């Protein structure tokens, strides 16, 4: 049977005669004409949809892992900033004593920096096993380049922390109104729309409990980007 892929391969060679800059588009046009004659194969659509699902699983896991990092930093910051405000600290410390585990798991199970060969040989078994089986960056996982991925996620973390009120807008790559019109994330946005009222109510309740201590806690909670890549919370000691 004539394979579309083999056609692409050969026709692309021929099309180099017409100039490399137009290679990709010319190939595409020829294939379009060919397939209009032959008909499209639904199995191919299904196959590549499955590939997209695989990649989306990886992409979503990367963003999810980064959210664990954000959660860790936010809860640690809340705990630190509310040391003198018992009502708030009781609530904040509940998270701060448990969330670090998840950040540790991100480093152990999901994202590892790219190991160097000499490091692999010297480091011993534990590091090698973790590097190999790390779900996102391990060669037996999705196999992403750990160094490259960590830089992208660090930048993303900076965006999240410097502009927290527009978190959703910053994450969506298409205009929200257009997504809504297409019926995308309509149920999710109903949940999301509850957040501002909830945040306002909790903040008001804490403020009403002790306005002075609330003010101190709020003053101590600062977010700072040390430079383009390094990220840190800065706690302003009274």
């Amino acid at each position, binding site marked *: 049977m004539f394979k579309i892929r083999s056609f692409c*391969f050969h026709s692309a060679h021929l099309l180099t005669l017409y100039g490399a800059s137009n290679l990709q588009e010319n190939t595409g046009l020829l294939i379009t004409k060919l397939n209009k004659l032959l008909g499209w194969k639904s199995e191919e659509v299904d196959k590549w949809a499955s590939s997209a699902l695989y990649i*989306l699983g990886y992409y979503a896991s990367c963003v999810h892992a980064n959210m664990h990092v954000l959660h860790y930093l936010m809860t640690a910051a809340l705990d630190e900033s509310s040391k003198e405000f018992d009502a708030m600290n009781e609530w904040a410390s509940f998270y701060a004593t448990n969330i670090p585990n998840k950040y540790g798991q991100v480093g152990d199970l999901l994202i590892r920096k790219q190991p160097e060969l000499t490091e692999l040989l010297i480091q011993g078994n534990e590091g090698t096993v973790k590097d190999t089986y790390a779900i996102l960056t391990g060669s037996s996982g999705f196999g992403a380049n750990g160094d490259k991925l960590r830089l992208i996620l660090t930048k993303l973390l900076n965006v999240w922390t410097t502009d927290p009120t527009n978190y959703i807008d910053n994450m969506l790559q298409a205009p929200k109104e257009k*997504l809504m019109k297409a019926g995308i994330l309509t149920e999710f946005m109903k949940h999301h729309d509850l957040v501002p009222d909830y945040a306002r109510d909790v903040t008001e309740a804490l403020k009403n409990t002790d306005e002075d201590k609330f003010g101190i806690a709020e003053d101590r909670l600062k977010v700072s980007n040390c430079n383009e890549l390094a990220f840190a919370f800065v706690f302003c000691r009274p």
Partner: protein
Amino acid sequence: MRLQTSTLILAAAISSSATAFAPSALAPRQATRLDAGTPMPQVLPGVDVPSPADIPEVISWPFTFQRVQLFLGGSIPGSANVMLGQPKSNKGTTIVAQTALLASQKIATQIPNASEYKFFGNGNHSKNLQYLLKTNPFMAAALTENGSGFELRSFDTRDPHAEDPSASLYRQIVSCLGGADHRVNIRFDADMSIREIRVYEVRTHYTHLIFCSK
């Protein structure tokens, strides 16, 4: 090889999710110290991992733990061996996993009209893709605008090699992957029906138009 990896990923993902269902509530108060003084490993540059001494013991949550174990014990061993080493095109393997999961959870017997439910793992990947992109916020965030519709864009058709720091987050993160079959552009219309699929083959440097419906 791909299936072997996928099985591992599935098992590991579920294992790590299991810990998410076992919150260590009311742990003895110990510090989460960012200024511990001793150098510690970092997942992201500038963000320290707390030293093991600072991490509190996980408090068991028997009911949740029991449910997670039931799922892991019932479905993973039953389906992993069947799926291992099988080609991705073999839809029968995902149905085995689905059957094992339903049997271990006894879900089907608890739902009066179970046959009318649409479970995942039905092999209809294009339908699953459209559904997940419409409902899952992680995945919907990957969509970019394209004319009157949307696109899942993992490479630039004019220059598939290009490293573009202004590209969408999805494209940047996908560019961290090596290997074959990871560069797929799928264009959707305003109703999220698939209109075009274009693939870039990393090894041969050619793009292939797989499907086009104008």
